């Protein structure tokens, strides 16, 4: 219903615009695209000082994957702010209700409608996802992978668990709050702690940088997974409600 309304609204607005405006907008977009294409053609792939800069300093970073080295060591301040942004997003969509703080993080209940295929599938899939996520986290030190990928996979496992309907998450529980902040907290603790040895925030000592990066990444993985599952939970208020027709919509997923 809402869908049709917005579509017809935007169609009316489109019809209201004079054709000269449309022409000018089209011209501007075409010009920008042309310049982008021209700059792509003229781009010299050999002239990349950053690649050699990262490669020559890689052994100081404590990891072998240049992407992880940049994200967690050379430009770790950016990643710290990204984790902070995730926490702000989590705060924005947190379910209100302080009385829920006494409830446990995960509650198990009988679902109204059971999907046997999904349940049987998840019994095999969930452990595999968790192990794969751990592998991605560990291998991020030398091969493609890392905290964001591992956290997203873990969140996918959490969403599948929610869809099966047996479990529900309460993000006001102390455990959940700990999960939501541990990434940023650990990042800040490590970042501030290394001041003692190197004198500069977030400048890890070379001998310990590998293990420090791993500690930060483990905490960040948990936080990223928790925030992404929280986002999905925030959109999933209805299935707990009394509407009976939601069960069959669930099957389409």
């Amino acid at each position, binding site marked *: 219903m809402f869908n049709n309304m917005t579509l017809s609204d935007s169609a009316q607005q489109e019809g209201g615009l004079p054709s000269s405006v449309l022409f000018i907008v089209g011209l501007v977009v075409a010009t920008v695209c042309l310049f982008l294409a021209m700059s792509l053609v003229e781009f010299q792939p050999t002239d990349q000082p950053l690649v050699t800069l990262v490669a020559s300093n890689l052994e100081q970073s404590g990891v072998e994957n240049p992407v992880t080295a940049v994200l967690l060591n050379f430009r770790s301040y950016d990643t710290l702010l990204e984790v902070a942004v995730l926490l702000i997003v989590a705060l924005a969509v947190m379910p209100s209700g302080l009385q829920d703080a006494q409830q446990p993080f995960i509650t198990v209940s009988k679902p109204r409608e059971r999907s046997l295929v999904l349940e049987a599938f998840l019994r095999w899939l969930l452990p595999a996802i968790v192990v794969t996520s751990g592998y*991605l986290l560990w291998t991020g030190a030398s091969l493609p992978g890392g905290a*964001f*990928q591992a956290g997203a996979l873990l969140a996918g496992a959490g969403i599948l668990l929610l869809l099966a309907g047996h479990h529900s998450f309460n993000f006001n529980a102390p455990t959940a709050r700990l999960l939501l902040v541990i990434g940023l907290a650990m990042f800040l603790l490590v970042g501030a702690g290394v001041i003692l040895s190197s004198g500069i925030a977030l400048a890890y000592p070379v001998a310990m940088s590998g293990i420090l990066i791993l500690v930060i990444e483990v905490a960040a993985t948990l936080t990223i997974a928790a925030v992404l599952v929280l986002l999905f939970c925030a959109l999933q208020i209805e299935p707990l409600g009394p509407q009976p027709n939601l069960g069959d919509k669930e099957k389409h997923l």
Partner: protein
Amino acid sequence: MISGELFIDLLLGIGALVTAILCLTAKDLFQAILLFISMGLLVTLAWVRLGAWDVAIAEAAIGAGLTGALLIATRRQLNQ
């Protein structure tokens, strides 16, 4: 061999563009979401072809997977 690789790259690039246009012009919201997820998968393959494996994994997990789930959940909210 080179022309075969070029063919795959062209297919991925044009496919991503076409699914993006179809996604933007789709009348049905559910159709648009499915097209968005397909576009995410094509873009994932494009990142793989560019050698950016980290971005490809992140795009597959977040861009195609989680965003799709979030969009479908949002659509269900809108249909209430």
